[in-house]
C-alpha cells in the first residue's frame, strides 16, 4: 500500500436553474431592498482608464432560440493588461476598474450587454503575449456546469494571429466563433451553445 493522497473532491456542479436572478441579480428582477445594488452591474466609472466599449450579444441554443434566462460573467484585464486580483503578481491594476462584470440576458429579448473597456494584452504561460480577450462564464437552466469561453476582437487581426490559444484550434473554421465583430459602440458577441456554428468552449 501507499500513503493516501488525502485530497477532497470538488463539489459537483448543478444547474443555476431558471431563477438564478433571485440570488445573483435580485434588483434586476425587482427584489429590491435586500442588496443595495446588483454585483457586477457597473464595471467602469469616470476615472477608469481605457477605451469604452459595449459588449452585446445573445446566447443561442441548438434550435437557434436565444436563451432568455442565462446569466453571464466576464473577467478581463484593465487597459494595461493587469487583472484587478490579489493573485496578480505583475503590478497594480487600475483601481477604478474591477475587471469583473455580471449581467443577465434580457427576459424578453435575450440580449445581454456589458459596458466595459477594451482590455490590454496579458502573457501566456511561456511569456508570449496573448491577444486582447475577455473571459466569459455562462450559466443557465439546462447548463449543468458553467461554460467557459473567450471573446477576442475581430479588429485585432495581428494580435489574434500570434495568440497561443487561438493557434491551437485545430479546426480553423471555428476560430471565428470566438471573434466579436465591431459595432457602433463596441462589439457584438453571440454565443452558440450547440450546432454547426457552436462556440468553442474551454476546459480551463
Amino acid at each position: 500500500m501507499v500513503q493516501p493522497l488525502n485530497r477532497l473532491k470538488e463539489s459537483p456542479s448543478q444547474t443555476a436553474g431558471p431563477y438564478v436572478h433571485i440570488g445573483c441579480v435580485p434588483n434586476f428582477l425587482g427584489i429590491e431592498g435586500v442588496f443595495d445594488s446588483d454585483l457586477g452591474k457597473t464595471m467602469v466609472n469616470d476615472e477608469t482608464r481605457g477605451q469604452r466599449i459595449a459588449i452585446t450579444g445573445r446566447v443561442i441554443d441548438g434550435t437557434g432560440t436565444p436563451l432568455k434566462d442565462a446569466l453571464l460573467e466576464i473577467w478581463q484585464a484593465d487597459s494595461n493588461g493587469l487583472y484587478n486580483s490579489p493573485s496578480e503578481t505583475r503590478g497594480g491594476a487600475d483601481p477604478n476598474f474591477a475587471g469583473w462584470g455580471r449581467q443577465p440576458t434580457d427576459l424578453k429579448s435575450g440580449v445581454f450587454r456589458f459596458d466595459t473597456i477594451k482590455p490590454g494584452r496579458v502573457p501566456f504561460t511561456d511569456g508570449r503575449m496573448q491577444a486582447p480577450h475577455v473571459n466569459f462564464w455562462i450559466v443557465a437552466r439546462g447548463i449543468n456546469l458553467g461554460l467557459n469561453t473567450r471573446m477576442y476582437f475581430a479588429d485585432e487581426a495581428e494580435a489574434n494571429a500570434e495568440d497561443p490559444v487561438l493557434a491551437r484550434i485545430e479546426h480553423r473554421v471555428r476560430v471565428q466563433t470566438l471573434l466579436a465583430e465591431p459595432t457602433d459602440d463596441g462589439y457584438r458577441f453571440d454565443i452558440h451553445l450547440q450546432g454547426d456554428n457552436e462556440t468553442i468552449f474551454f476546459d480551463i
Partner: protein
Amino acid sequence: MRNATYETGAFFVRDRSWHPKAYTPDYKTSVTRSPQKALLSLENTVSEITGPVFGHDILGEKDNDLIYNFARPGESAIGERIIVHGKVLDERGRGVPGVLVEFWQANAAGRYRHKNEGYMAPLDPNFGGCGRTITDDDGGYAFRTVKPGPYPWPNGVNDWRPAHIHFSIFGYGFAQRLITQMYFEGDPLIPLCPIVRTIADEAAIEQLVAPLDMASTVPMDARAYKFDIVLRGRRSTMFENRMEGN
C-alpha cells in the same frame, strides 16, 4: 483582509466525470443547451488564475439572514427556521477565507419570488429568498433561513425538485467559479430528481446532501444543517515552467 500571500499556481484539473456531463437528456432542457463538440483544453494562464475578490463593504447587516432580510419590521418569514453553516475548502482541505458565497431558494411552500414562476403555492410577503456572505478566516460561513419546500417543474409529467438551496461560490481564480445546489438529509425526492441524477457518481451526489447537525442547532429556535463546499485546489508555483516575471 488577511495577511497570507495569495497563491498563483494553476488549479487542479477539473474531474469532468465527477461533475455532471453537459448532455443529460432526462433533464430535458440540457438537450438543446449542451455543446456537442469537445471542450478545448487550456492550461491556466493569468486570465484563469486570477479572479475577483470582494470586501465586506458590499455586505449589509442582514444579508445572511433570509428570515429577516426581506421581512417587514417586526415580522419574519414563515417556515421551519434553520441555520445552514459549513466551510468553503479547497481540494487540499484548506479553508478558503474571504470569498463570496451567494444563495437563493424558494419559500417554505416551494414558491420562488420570480416573475416567470407560475406555481400556485403562495408567496410569503416576508420572504425574498436571496442572501450572501463572505467566508471568515477559516473559510467558515453561516446563514439563517427557512427550509424551502419541494417544487413541481415541467420536465416529466410529475417531476418534483427536492427541497434545495442554490449556492454560487467565488474562489480566488475565475477558474474556481462554481454554482451548485444543496439538498437535505433524508429527502426521499433526492434519488428521483433528474437534475440530481445528472451526476453519475453516487458519492458525488452525497457530497451535495447536508446532514442535520443537532450540535449546532439552537434549542427552542432553529435547527442546523452543515454543508461544506469544496473548490478546486491549486499547485504550488515552486516548479512551474513559467517565464521569469510572470
